[in-house]
């Protein structure tokens, strides 16, 4: 288990970095798919089976396909968008990010290792998840469904060529 965490963790970080560094949008998207896949594996390690599958199904299987579909539809080639006199801003933003990472590292290295508690069989299963969603979180759940409906309508309206 320990090794699997590090394997998938480093895979996630590596492909995440590649995504940011890649010029080609399709390559970037595929790297993001690898990140999502590794994260789904990490979710399984955290006994979150349902979320792991949803992660694969929705994120990797649907959202990312949509991304790639749009990239192909717009026929975006290699990202030739050169920064125009913005190298300074780039440097600053990278520095800020590195600084934040260092802070994070400091914070975490100072705290002692916190072991995870063992959980029972039912933890993270579809049934439990359904129970929670349809009892305690029913209202948010319904709100989310309205949100999705709004998103569908919005997407259709936006992507349509003309409003007629």
């Amino acid at each position, binding site marked *: 288990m320990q090794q699997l965490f590090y394997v998938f963790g480093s895979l996630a970080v590596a492909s995440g970095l590649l995504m940011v560094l890649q010029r080609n949008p399709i390559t970037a998207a595929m790297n993001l798919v690898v990140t999502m896949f590794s994260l789904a594996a990490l979710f399984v390690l955290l006994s979150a089976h349902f979320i792991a599958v949803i992660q*694969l199904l929705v994120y990797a299987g*649907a959202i990312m396909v949509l991304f790639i579909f749009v990239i*192909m539809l717009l026929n975006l080639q290699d990202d030739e968008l050169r920064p125009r006199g913005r190298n300074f801003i780039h440097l600053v933003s990278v520095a800020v990010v590195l600084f934040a990472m260092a802070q994070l590292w400091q914070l975490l290295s100072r705290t002692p290792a916190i072991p995870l508690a063992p959980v029972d069989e039912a933890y993270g299963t*579809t049934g439990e998840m359904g129970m929670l969603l349809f009892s305690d979180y029913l209202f948010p759940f319904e709100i989310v469904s309205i949100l999705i409906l709004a998103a569908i309508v919005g997407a259709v309206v936006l992507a349509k060529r003309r409003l007629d």
Partner: protein
Amino acid sequence: MPAEAIFMAGKIGFVFFLVLNLAGVLGWVERKQSALMQDRIGANRAPIFGITAIGLFHPLADAIKAFTKEDFIPARAHKLFHTLAPFIALVPALTAFAVIPFGDTLTIGGETTQLVVADLDVGVLFVFAIMSLATFGVVLAGWSSYNNYSMLGGLRASAQMLSYEIVMGLTLVGVFMVYGSLQLTEIARAQGEYFVFGGVNTWIPKWGILTQPLAFFLFLTAAVAESKRLPFDVAEAESELVAGYFTEYSGMKFLMFWMAEFVEIVVISALVATLFLGGWQIPWLHPDGLHVPFTAIVVGLPSLVVSMMGVGAFLMKVFVLIWLQMTIRWTLPRFRYDQIMRLGWKMILPLALVNVVLTGFVVLLLNR
């Protein structure tokens, strides 16, 4: 636990053996079946020491030919993705079989195991999740080939597979409501029970096709569409797009797309058999033997025999469904791209929703 490890190895071996061989043999079956439909003889050459075995060695000959062919990558293609795409298309299809139970429990030497590689709690969702990854193979193949036909094929395939995944998922909601589980072993086991009306046992098994007849047809349609077989093969429509996303493939990589298609047929057939045709269940056959309908007589059978009969029954159902898909493939013309989309979104999706609502009412009434 060595026993568990041995069982696991055996099950994985069996599944791989089954799926890969079926995929190979399906190539032959497809040729022979189409030949039968079209008043032809079909493949009957490819001898080994003069024995042709009615053309059974043709898949082998194809494989040898594909291996020795030049592996061609177009000049301006994206080499990495062009190479990777067939693998991405094939591997998920193989993986999806892991959660499909091919038999009931098997007891050998006091050790009992469920005949499924991974009995996941999220069973069906896992199959969908994994199969949705196969989309990437197709899309990448289309994009990386640097060919307009491939590109159009990839675009069509991504839109089609994305749409039909949603439709497929929705058609199954009714099944989940009836059996109360996503776990494929539990769904299959629940189908061994009988309809009981007013306390009277009818001895009709609760197969999915009987409890969810509408869902069965909708799911089968959506599943065939998902596997991009005729009449839904617009992504590779040979008369319009030459070969769609795998126009620029040759040799082994071409064969891998081909294999992926056949493996998907097997997976879909297995999934339909498990969800709607009772999986390994044979009517009136229980772990302790054959129960004669409307009586209490039980013809006792050893559990090993029952397990083996279950595996046989499962394979039979898979074969029948494969045959059905092949018959459809050689009978129907191809849809147009927009007609496929219309069918998915405007026909199957609303019908699936209606099915969910109706099932909800019925389940509520029966549980009252």
